[in-house]
């Protein structure tokens, strides 16, 4: 109760101040009828103000933007369905010239303005609800950590990167209705190796890179709506019609992301264009939502059906992963598609059944193109080669130990991984206790980059390059001490614990299947995000679970109690001192005892002088 005593009045008072503010502001005389209540609508009259110039001959404007949309549906071995949307808008704009007037066609204006104002070179932002279970579901097409993640490469013309970053996070927070404004210097790091630019460009000076995660961020409808607004067709046509929030958020995993990067316009890469990729991944647990029936269809997953492709899209396709279903033993597709496509995704050759939505015949007679009966999968899933997990060990509220375990499931190849850990300052890492062991032996990292934290200023940053031996588990442990926070630094629910963002493990994993490295060939969007330079390995980024760490939490009535107690102690001490100083002490004659007094009374009654 006492904690409320201490906190609520402050809020009440702030409110009071605000009211006073409003009152004072409204004392200003204003025009009658000013404000939102009346907007007069008037017909425009064009008088002689028309400049009367010669009518410019209208010439067809070449449409330089392009838009693609794509949905991949993959039945997972756990019985869940993985749906992955990708929308790609390419804007052939040159930002290096710095021209002021900006004209947008398919590219959203709000993002374009942000990019040009803050000189952003690459921007990657993701909002995720739930944790991707790599061991059950395999690798996702685009990984993302729980909560919000934002990493930005700025142009090398930016002088005050930290200031720009702060402003940018505030603006993005407004655009995506998310609490990205909580990103400050205490949760921002500059990774030196783990996050390389994904687009073209040779700037790799990590002074221009900022990376931050908010593992506590909760993703919901209010983040989806602005995300959908960035699509040229909105949610009115095309695949985005399926994105209905009540179904999307009733899923085991939901992740939406925006990636902006410069890409080559053509093979010779003389000029660049800006690519905006909006991805949305969801894993549906149809067993619980479908009354224990394992049937699935687009309608059951999204409670919508497709009627048309987005008319602005140059390609609009649905891919159904039928690798495990080559003979139709697990599910049937209706209507069946004759078009098959093979693609190498994450070191695995997959077969997809392709539906082209720009082809009117796809929709056919039935409105629901996919209706499938499901049987439990037979056979084992290909185990992901790289996998990681993390936990906090130790007891008590003073010290603890962070364990990060990385698994290499490759039977005979070892490969290096880059581990990035960003730990908030209130967990004080004892970096001398850092140990890396694999198979019971010490595994010395070949590269370690450690930036110690500064209290209330910046987090710990730990990056290292570790070689993972084949078929092994490598454990990285580091001890930490929990710091005491100031009482205003605690969250409103401090006993819930404090989140520590996921570790990021990036690696080039050796692959048995050759990946197509040429960029000329038209590839499905889901397999063409990470640039691939080598044929026999593929890039994987794995995020571990975020940690939830309990910090010593004080009783929040403490400040008031302490004030009262201290005051009382001071008052008592002061009182006795005061008494000692001001009172005069003198020896008093001891007063006569009770017997003597009674005797005296009796003697007085008898008329005898008292004792």
């Amino acid at each position, binding site marked *: 109760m006492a904690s409320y005593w201490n906190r609520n009045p402050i809020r009440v008072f702030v409110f009071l101040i605000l009211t006073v503010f409003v009152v004072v502001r409204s004392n200003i005389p204003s025009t009658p009828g000013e404000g939102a209540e009346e907007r007069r609508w008037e017909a425009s009259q064009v008088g002689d103000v028309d400049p009367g110039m010669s009518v410019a001959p209208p010439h067809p404007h070449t449409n330089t933007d392009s838009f693609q949309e794509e949905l991949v549906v993959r039945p997972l071995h756990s019985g869940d369905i993985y749906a992955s949307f990708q929308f790609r808008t390419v804007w052939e704009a040159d930002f290096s010239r710095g021209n002021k007037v900006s004209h947008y066609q398919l590219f959203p204006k709000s993002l374009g303005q942000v990019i040009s104002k803050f000189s952003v070179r690459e921007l990657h932002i993701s909002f995720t609800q739930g944790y991707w279970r790599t061991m059950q579901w395999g690798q996702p097409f685009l990984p993302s950590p729980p909560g919000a993640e934002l990493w930005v490469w700025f142009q090398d013309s930016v002088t005050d990167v930290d200031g720009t970053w702060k402003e940018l996070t505030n603006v993005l927070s407004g655009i995506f209705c998310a609490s990205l404004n909580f990103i400050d210097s205490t949760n921002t790091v500059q990774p030196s190796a783990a996050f390389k630019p994904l687009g073209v460009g040779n700037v790799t000076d990590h002074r221009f890179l900022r990376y931050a995660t908010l593992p506590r961020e909760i993703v919901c409808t209010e983040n989806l709506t602005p995300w959908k607004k960035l699509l040229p067709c909105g949610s009115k046509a095309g695949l985005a019609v399926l994105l209905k929030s009540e179904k999307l958020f009733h899923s085991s995993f939901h992740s939406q992301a925006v990636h902006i990067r410069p890409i080559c316009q053509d093979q010779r890469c003389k000029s660049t264009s800006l690519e905006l990729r909006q991805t949305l991944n969801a894993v549906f647990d149809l067993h619980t939502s479908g009354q224990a029936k394992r049937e699935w269809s687009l309608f059951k997953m999204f409670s919508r059906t497709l009627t048309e492709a987005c008319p602005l899209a140059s390609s609009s396709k649905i891919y159904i992963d039928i690798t495990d279903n080559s003979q139709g033993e697990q599910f049937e597709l209706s209507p069946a598609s004759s078009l098959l496509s093979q693609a190498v995704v994450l070191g695995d050759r997959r077969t997809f059944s392709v539906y082209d939505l720009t082809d009117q015949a796809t929709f056919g007679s039935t409105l629901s193109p996919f209706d499938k009966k499901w049987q439990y999968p037979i056979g084992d899933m290909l185990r992901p080669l790289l996998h990681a997990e993390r936990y906090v060990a130790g007891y008590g509220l003073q010290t603890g130990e962070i364990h990060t375990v990385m698994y290499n499931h490759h039977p005979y190849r070892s490969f290096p991984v880059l581990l990035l850990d960003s730990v908030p300052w209130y967990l004080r890492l004892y970096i001398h206790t850092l140990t890396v062991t694999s198979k019971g032996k010490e595994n010395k990292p070949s590269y370690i980059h450690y930036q110690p934290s500064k209290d209330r200023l910046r987090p710990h940053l730990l990056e290292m390059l570790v070689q993972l031996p084949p078929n092994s588990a490598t454990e990285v442990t580091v001890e930490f001490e929990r710091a005491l926070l100031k009482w205003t630094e605690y969250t409103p629910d401090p006993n819930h614990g404090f989140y520590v963002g996921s570790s990021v493990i990036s690696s080039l994993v050796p692959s048995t299947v050759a990946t197509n490295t040429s960029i000329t060939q038209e590839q499905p969007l889901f397999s063409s995000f990470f640039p691939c330079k080598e044929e026999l390995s593929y890039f994987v980024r794995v995020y571990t679970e975020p940690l939830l760490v309990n910090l010593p939490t004080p009783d929040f009535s403490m400040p008031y109690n302490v004030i009262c107690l201290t005051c009382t102690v001071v*008052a008592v001490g002061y009182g006795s001192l005061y008494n000692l100083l001001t009172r005069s002490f003198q020896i008093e004659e001891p007063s006569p005892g009770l017997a003597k007094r009674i005797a005296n009374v009796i003697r007085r009654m008898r008329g005898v002088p008292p004792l």
Partner: protein
Amino acid sequence: MAVTEVERRRGKLAALSIAAMVILVGVPLWWKTTQTYRAWLPVAQINELAKLQLQLSADVEVVFARGTATPEQQKKVPVTQTQDEDHAVDEDTTLRYRHETRYRTATVMEEDALKQPTAAEADLSLHRLSESPCGSLVIYVIPESSSLLPENVNVYIGQRRTALLRIGAQMKVGKTLKQLLAHLEPRVKQILQVMSFSHNDITAALSDRVRFSPDNKESIADSMRAFKSSPGYEITFSLLNPDPKSHRLHWDIEGAVQTYIQPLLTKLSPVANFSLDSQILYYAMLGVNPRYDSSRSAYILNADSLAHVINPVEARLGSNAASSNPVLNFLLYVPDAHHSPLYIHDHKKREVQTNAFHSPRWGGIMVYNVNGFYQTGTNFPVDVNINMAKVMGVFLAQLRLLLGVQSTAPPSSFQVAPCGSSGLADWELDRLMWSRSVENVATATTTITSLAQLLDQIGNIVINDNIAQQVSSAVTSLQLAVAELEVGNLGFALQYSKEAILASEKAFFDPSLLHLLYFPDDQKFAIYIPLFLPMCVPILLSLLKIVSEVRQRRREKQAKKD
């Protein structure tokens, strides 16, 4: 007994010295450590600004061409003449308009310029001769016989800061100079009403400061149409294509902006900074369903329903994330194939010629019908090239209105030159600058005075040095702006008033003013009581005791004396 007396004296001295310590050291220390930091503010100057006395001065030059005044009259012409006009707008705001009129005769070169065949050419060559400074005017009095002006036109207002005034027929040579000047004066005044500041404009600009009783609806609508003065504006052109399946729209916005909008904005650059962008929005619908009119086989939007048109579109327009300046929206709406053609009807149920309307302080919308592109047997989508000249003519007119370039109807005998390629005459810019300066001054003074009032009322608010600095610079800029207006340096006045408004807003909206560290007094004392009560009670009690003892002793002494 002597020992106890000494003891008692010592006790008394101890009590007194402790009380003295508490009062001399403790209380000031407590006061100092719990005090909020409040930097010094120029309160006296702010209070001075609360009473605003604005004086607007404009220089007017009246030039007599040959044949309008006799040489004797020309000699006697007074060099300058000052006319003051005082208005008390309300008890705190007074206005004074001062026109300093200078009379002179035309130079030889000016005479040559006035011999040009048309008024427009004369205007141009006069402009080449000399450029009059911002805010001033030159009126050329030309003889009645001059062929520059058509028969029924007496006054020609040029594109720059010059006007040609034809002298009346009754003012033949031979009248006295007094009569001549008396004849000219009302006409000059009329010209000034059109070309320089008018009382209506200025009072409208003061609307932030002064509450007006609504006298007529029309003037309120006029005053509310334009955007508030702001150091910058964002202009956004949006092409709304609700039906991308049927229409593939192409608009050359880049070229159109360069040709039509940019010259105007370049001209307006002293008033504010402008940034331009454009976007295309697909599937953006209007908020109302238009009514089908079978007699015309067209869809009709009534003026009453226009208010509901914008709201659903506005959600899609998006605010400018990268700046906080007000946004002017210009929407070009191409109705979908099933609701086409679409026409806007005004309150009198007549078709609006331009098929466009604007909303005060928001922007404009134009409906662009593309039925001409449908031919029998065309298959959708249809490629449509939008005629940007037609569109930009409408948007330019709306932009002028929304920016507050007033086009008050001049008297019938006036001829106003069509504005040139920039879309704005110099004197129109001057008018805008006058009213913007006054508006900025009015807004900045109200902001600063209300901030001072707020800080005065809540003593707990921390006033940091940067706020004090902003306030002082706002006050200085305001004083400078007022002084420049008084002298008639319009350009500087606007510049200073803009600085004032920026500084005052920055001070008013500084987040440090709303810091979370204010506690109400009763709660502060609830925390202090456990310390103060046990400390103060013994001190008070012993002080009382000493006082009563002293009194007692005095009484005893008195008794002894008696």
